[in-house]
């Protein structure tokens, strides 16, 4: 089983899984989510449905919430 480091924790995923599918399977919404994928910053406007996760990838998730 392939593993991704999700927010610092090893997490198993199915080979070939795309970022959007990975998030949906874990009930993580993409609205106002900032993703750091192997050091690259992504938001929901990026094609998360076509980016494929690979074994050993690092994925960190941050929520943007209102207030300022």
């Amino acid at each position: 089983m392939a593993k991704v480091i999700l927010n610092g924790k090893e997490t198993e995923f199915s080979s070939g899984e795309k970022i959007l599918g990975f998030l949906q399977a874990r009930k993580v919404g993409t609205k106002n989510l900032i993703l750091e994928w192997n050091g690259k910053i992504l938001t929901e406007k990026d094609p998360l449905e076509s980016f494929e996760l690979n074994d050993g990838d690092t994925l960190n998730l941050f929520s943007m919430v209102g207030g300022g």
Partner: protein
Amino acid sequence: MNVNPYLNDAQRAVLERAKIGVAGLGGLGSNVLAHLVRAGIRLFVAADFDVVSASNLNRQFFFADQVGQKKTGALAENLRRIDPELELDFRDLRLTGENTPEVFAGCDVVVEAFDKADAKTMLIGALADSGIPVVAASGLAGFGKSNDIRVRKAGKNLYLVGDLVSGISAELAPASPRVGIAAAMEANTVVAILLGLEI
């Protein structure tokens, strides 16, 4: 004369040359700018389309006699009372995914200082490939839990200030102490980036 007499020559040279962008002139942006002006930075680009309202006075760097004025004009006036020699390019416009890269082109660092989560995400996305460091804030509503507010680095150029969970809600309003902590941490991060110091 720099308003900050405690800078050494090398620090003064860096800060006086720096151009900082600020997206939004509310609780975060107005206070970030006051900190950065006092730190000795002089060159700013900022954008906000709003006017000062009475409900802003609980946390924003405006005064009661400025209610109804455009935030761009009112804040420029307040900052120039600290340092009359500032170069302020304050634009009365709504930032979008389309105009954001152009407005902040040439900035050394951009501060995300919006109120709404959608706008925060828009700005981070719009500048993600620009190579410009972005200092953003998420999770600063309410009172207490000061130690939950911290700075995280994401990727090469993104810095996130806040607790990432305390959004504005019916139970959680924005208030000066916690918004102020986040604004000061955003400003401190900007200066650390410019001077090459630990975040």
